[in-house]
């Protein structure tokens, strides 16, 4: 991955250089990604027949990105931290794992007196403001300009904060590899987190994500988010259906359209570890960002107090 930082290079980087870079270069490097730049996917789940072609294509395409851990794993201290090993269960495809970034949730639901078989391809939602990226304490995840949320396996310590803050608990950990082995393997970190990167490398070359290309039923469409939202509303109107992902967690770049309400689907699907829900999700980053106004007002109040004191004492 050419755009990623080599972990050894990163570790060798001087702190003075880090500080200088932080102070001087970041504003120039920052970019605005809102709306226009994001690519979103539309999933018409009325079309999905659970053939598994997308799951298979994802696995084949991303083989080179899958973890190859070193064994034996370090003994974790304290023992509350457990090693997680999926390397002997690479074929598991009925949930999300570090070796399976996409799976299909299948269920039967009754709606309007009709029984529906519903199959839902599930993977990372690629939130428009992804907590996994924004709250990673080491900056090991990145949101690309096209909206893809990406974890850097060279920088990730496997602490799983991204999973904890993800409203759908999408990222999955594999122990026994990553930068933590070079630092304090027993005491800090525990591997690397993995999830769908929406085939960012294929998209960079003008190709479609493997799951979209392989689908024989054209379940998925990819395009600029605004267009996808318009298409989703048109499709929902046409099928008298329902939308999920447009506003969840402040908006995602994965938009599902279903003939069955998502609250019914959420009750019907199997949920749990590696099996995300379909509940409504509030914007998890909003509370903090709303407080940012206080950060702007507080210094003004401080200056006003100092000026008031100065005026009082010099009057």
């Amino acid at each position, binding site marked *: 991955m050419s755009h990623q930082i080599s972990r050894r290079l*990163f570790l060798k980087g001087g702190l003075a250089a880090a*500080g200088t870079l932080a*102070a001087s270069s970041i504003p120039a490097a920052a970019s605005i990604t809102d709306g226009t730049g994001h690519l979103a996917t539309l999933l018409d789940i009325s079309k999905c027949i659970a053939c598994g072609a997308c799951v298979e294509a994802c696995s084949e395409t991303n083989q080179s990105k899958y973890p190859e851990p070193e064994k034996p794993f370090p003994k974790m201290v304290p023992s*509350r931290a457990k090693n997680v090993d999926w390397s002997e269960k690479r074929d598991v495809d009925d949930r999300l794992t570090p070796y399976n970034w996409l799976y299909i949730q299948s269920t039967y639901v009754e709606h309007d007196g009709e029984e529906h078989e519903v199959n839902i391809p599930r993977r990372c939602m690629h939130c428009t403001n992804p907590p996994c990226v924004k709250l990673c*304490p080491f900056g090991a995840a990145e949101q690309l300009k096209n909206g893809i949320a990406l974890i850097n396996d060279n920088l990730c310590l496997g*602490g799983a904060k991204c999973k904890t803050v993800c409203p759908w608990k999408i990222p999955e950990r594999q122990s026994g590899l990553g930068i933590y082995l070079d630092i304090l393997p027993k005491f800090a970190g525990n591997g690397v987190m993995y999830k769908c990167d929406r085939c960012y490398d294929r998209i960079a070359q003008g190709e479609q994500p493997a799951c979209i290309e392989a689908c024989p039923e054209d379940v998925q469409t990819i395009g600029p988010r605004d267009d996808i939202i318009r298409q989703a509303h048109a499709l929902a109107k046409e099928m008298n259906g329902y939308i999920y992902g447009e506003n969840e967690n402040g908006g995602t770049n994965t938009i599902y359209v279903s003939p069955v309400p998502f609250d019914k689907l959420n009750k019907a699907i199997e949920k749990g570890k590696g099996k995300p829900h379909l509940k409504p999700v509030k914007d998890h980053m909003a509370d903090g960002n709303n407080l940012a106004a206080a*950060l702007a007002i507080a210094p003004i109040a401080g200056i006003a107090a100092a000026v008031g004191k100065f005026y009082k004492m010099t009057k």
Partner: protein
Amino acid sequence: MKANEDQSGPNRKTLMWYLYLISMVLLAFTGFGQMPIYKRYYISDIPGLAWSADFYTTHLIHYIFSALFLGIAAYVVFDHLLLKKKRFALTLSGFIRSAIIAGLVATGLLLVIYNFSGVAFPMWAAATLLVAHMTLAVALIVTGLIVIIRKMPWTVPN
């Protein structure tokens, strides 16, 4: 001149000094709590500290005390510039602490901007910023311990 008035800024044990201390302690605690360590190391098992394992809660508390800290910092800086600059000079340790705090404020504000929807930093920039913020926090704690032990003031009379 009364006792304690031979120094300016946060040297005096005023309400401002206690607010500064409280904000520093909580900023450090919630700041380090952004790393997934409090649950792993049983800190959140301590009665009354279960919230420390909730990253959104520690994130909010960090923002609240950042606002308090910025208010105090702005007051102290302007109070010094307007009223005390002629009578008091910054010591070397005061200058070092001020520089570290300025670095923390700059990197912290950039991180606040980073958290807004629609703002993306390249991975190297976000990682650099986070490591710089964390390193400056450690530097401030170490410096703080040294100045407390050696009773070094921020300012001295001219």
